[in-house]
């Protein structure tokens, strides 16, 4: 499979690599050069005086400790606005687990020589919401936020930092291997069904402004996009406009007839009604 440098896949890999470099160079700079400009990883990231706090981790902290802290709320604002506008793009364009999963997929395609990777085990997508609910529920019962110390994207950062600062690896890194290993059964198995952060971002982005829209007139129903989607969604059935789509743009790349494109949705419900009316005519 040749890679078109202007495809969304190429751009996404570039952003994912840059996002990974941030959490790699941050600890390196801190440890070897005492440059404190970047601290942390994707639980809370400080770039200069700009702070970001992951919305779910911040919410858990507030729910469990029952205390509000203004800097944390402000730091949660940027990720929330990003998710409101673009949906859960953190998952597909930034998350280090996504970065590793993409690399793993690439290696698997190289080794097997196949263009398409199979999903062997499919579960109900609604599991995602139960994962989020269960996780919040359990955190509040235990009195400690669960996701903050077992969140795979956070763990990647913590392992890198532990390696650089203490020249060792923390035990909980096994979770990363497990999550990545699940990719061999079904692509993005953890992201699809179990990631509470993904669920929270999907919820925030439920009325996202930018979405992949299918032009029914151009679609030839070849099904290439259905096979390509890393989440196993079906763009031909309009599932890109559902809660679960993370706007990675893989389906747009693979479409031969340019039927799919990122579009700014003015009023999602109105547009959908219009489309329905058109199809009924």
């Amino acid at each position, binding site marked *: 499979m040749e890679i078109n440098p202007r495809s969304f896949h190429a751009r996404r890999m570039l952003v994912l690599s840059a996002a990974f470099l941030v959490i790699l160079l*941050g*600890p390196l700079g*801190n*440890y070897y050069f*005492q440059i*404190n400009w970047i*601290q*942390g*990883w994707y*639980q*809370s*990231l*400080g770039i200069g005086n700009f*702070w970001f*706090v*992951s919305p779910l*981790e*911040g919410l*858990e*902290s507030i729910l*469990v*400790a*029952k*205390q509000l*802290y203004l*800097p*944390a709320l402000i*730091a949660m604002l940027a990720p929330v606005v990003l998710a409101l506008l673009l949906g859960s793009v953190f998952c597909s364009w930034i998350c280090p687990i996504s970065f590793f999963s993409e690399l793993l997929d690439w290696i698997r395609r190289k080794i097997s020589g196949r263009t398409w990777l199979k999903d062997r085990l499919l579960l109900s997508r609604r599991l995602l919401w139960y994962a989020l609910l269960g996780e919040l*529920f*359990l955190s509040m*019962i*235990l*009195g*400690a*936020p669960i996701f*903050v*110390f*077992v969140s795979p994207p*956070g763990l990647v*950062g*913590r392992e890198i*930092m*532990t390696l650089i*600062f*203490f020249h060792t690896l*923390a*035990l*909980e890194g096994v979770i990363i291997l497990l999550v990545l290993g699940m990719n061999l059964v079904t692509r993005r198995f953890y992201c699809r069904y179990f990631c509470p952060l993904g669920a929270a971002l999907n919820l925030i982005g439920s009325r996202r402004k930018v979405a992949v829209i299918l032009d029914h007139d151009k679609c030839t129903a070849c099904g290439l996009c259905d096979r390509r989607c890393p989440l196993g969604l079906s763009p031909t059935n309009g599932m890109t406009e559902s809660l679960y789509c993370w706007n990675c743009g893989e389906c747009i790349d693979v479409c031969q007839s340019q039927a799919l494109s990122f579009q700014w949705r003015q009023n999602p419900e109105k547009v959908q009604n219009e489309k329905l009316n058109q199809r009924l005519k």
Partner: protein
Amino acid sequence: MKRRDFLKKSGAALCLITALPETAFSKGLLKSPVTTNRLRPPGAVPEEIFAGKCIRCGRCVEVCPYRSISLLDIRAGIFTGTPIIAAEAIPCYLCMKCVLICPTGTLRKTSQEQTRMGMAVVNRHRCYTWEGSIICRTCFDVCPYKGSAIILDELRPIIEGDHCVGCGICTHACPVTAEDGSKAINIEPIYSRETVQWK
């Protein structure tokens, strides 16, 4: 599944979940890792809510110029990923960088003098000067608040609880090391046991 079965099973599941803290506690998974010479960074909230408030972003570890702060791993139970200072290894030198970058307010902003990580306690059965074997005043010499936090009474060190910040520099410098790794002057994290005032 019949409705009765469903209710039974969900009831059982609920019992299991509510029993979780109990079982976790018995295995030490809910036990705070803060003990003698194992301290939280400056300005830390009480242990009661520390695990709940800290989001384990590790920024305090990265920013610490002395590498005093390290992270706990999964063996610390619910305290996994929280920062800890081993006072006898590398104490806190009160640069106050970590309190400025904590994004969740788990480390509250405090001044150097108002930091209370713990209180130094002299073990008079181990201290050379108190035992009368030799005259050593290492702890007094290294204390950043010597004269107020630590005073000499007939050359023997005495801690003034009102002024001791619990940084552990004295513990680190103390020449006496017992078999269990503790020193003749140790930091007791008495303030971490405070309870939170709910308003």
